[in-house]
C-alpha cells in the first residue's frame, strides 16, 4: 500500500483500486482440495499445522467453484488430463495454477512414457513451477510466495525484484 502525499492520518491509506484488489486476492488464495499422486502428501503436510498454509490466508476448498488456486500435485496421465481440464474450467476467474513436482512440470521420471502427459502445462496454463520429487513444504511455500508476488504485479507496472 503506497502512502502517497499528505500527512499521515491515522487509519487512512491511499492506494489504487488495482493494488487493493491484488492485495486481497493474494491474501486469500483458497486452493482446491485436489491431489493426484504422492506430491499431494507434501501438499497436505504444507497445509497442516507444522507448516501452516492458513497464515497466508490459504485454506482448501472442496469445490473448484470456490477455489482460486489449483495446485497440481502429481503425475498427470492421459485419463486424468481431461478431468484436470474440467476442474480448471469450473474454477471462477481469476484463477492460478501451481505445477508441483517433476511429474506436473514435464513428466518427471515418467517423461516420454505411454499414458503420461509430459507436464500439466500441456493441458492448462501454469503460473508457478515448483520442482522437486516431491518438493518439500518449504519449496511449495516458496512457490506460493512467488505466486503472491505475481498476483501483486497483475495489471500494474512494478519493476521485478532485483536478482541476487
Amino acid at each position, binding site marked *: 500500500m503506497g502512502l502517497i502525499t499528505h500527512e499521515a492520518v491515522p487509519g487512512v491509506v491511499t492506494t489504487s483500486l488495482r493494488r487493493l484488489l491484488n492485495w486481497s486476492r493474494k491474501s486469500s488464495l483458497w486452493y482446491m482440495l485436489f491431489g493426484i499422486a504422492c506430491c499431494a502428501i507434501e501438499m497436505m503436510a504444507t497445509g497442516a499445522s507444522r507448516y501452516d498454509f492458513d497464515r497466508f490466508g490459504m485454506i482448501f476448498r472442496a469445490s473448484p467453484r470456490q477455489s482460486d488456486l489449483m495446485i497440481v500435485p502429481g503425475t498427470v496421465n*492421459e*485419463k486424468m488430463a481431461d478431468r484436470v481440464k474440467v476442474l480448471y474450467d469450473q474454477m471462477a476467474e481469476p484463477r492460478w495454477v501451481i505445477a508441483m513436482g517433476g511429474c506436473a512440470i514435464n513428466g518427471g521420471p515418467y517423461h516420454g512414457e*505411454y*499414458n503420461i*502427459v509430459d507436464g500439466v*502445462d*500441456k*493441458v*492448462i*496454463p501454469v503460473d508457478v513451477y515448483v520442482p522437486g520429487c516431491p518438493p518439500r513444504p518449504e519449496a511449495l511455500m516458496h512457490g506460493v510466495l512467488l505466486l503472491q508476488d505475481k498476483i501483486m504485479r497483475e495489471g500494474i507496472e512494478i519493476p521485478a525484484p532485483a536478482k541476487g
Partner: protein
Amino acid sequence: MSEHEATTWPEHLQPVADALRERFPQLSIELKPDNWLEVKVDADQSPEFFRYIKEYPGLAFDYLLDVTAVDYINEGKLQVVYHLARLGTDAKKRGKLVVKIDLPRDNPRVRSVVDIWPTANFHEREVYDMFGVVFEGHPDLRRILMREDWVGHPLRKDYVDQRPKRTRVTR
C-alpha cells in the same frame, strides 16, 4: 517326469501332481523354486482344466492370485499366466500353481475364467488393455486403465505411441 524326480517333491505337492496327471496324462508339470508347480495348458483345453482344478476336491484351487501375460515377440506368441493358490488347507500344505497358456500373437483368444473365479474380471480386463488378449465369455471386456479411445496395447513389445503431440498451453 521320471519317478526319481517325483519322489523328491515336497509331500504336500505330490497329491496335486497326481490328481492333475490322473485327468490330464499329457500335462507337463514342473517344480519351480519356492515350491511352485508350473503347468502348461493348451488354449482349447483350458476351460476344462480350470474347472477341474477349482472343483476337484483333492485340488480345490480356490484363490486366483493374478492373471498377467508376457509378450514373447521373437517366438510370435503371447503367454497368459495364471497364479493360483488354495486357502482351504493347512498353511504349510498350501499348493501354489502357475498355469501358462501360449497364444498366437496375431490372434490371441482364450476362454475367460470369470465364471470360475470372479476376481478374474479386472485382471482379464487389464491383460486385454495392456496386451490385447481377448477373453471369450468375459461379461464386460473393456479397457480398464487406458482411455477408451486409446490406440494399441502398450505393453506389447512392438507398441508405438500414436498420440498427437501436445503443445504448451499459455494463458
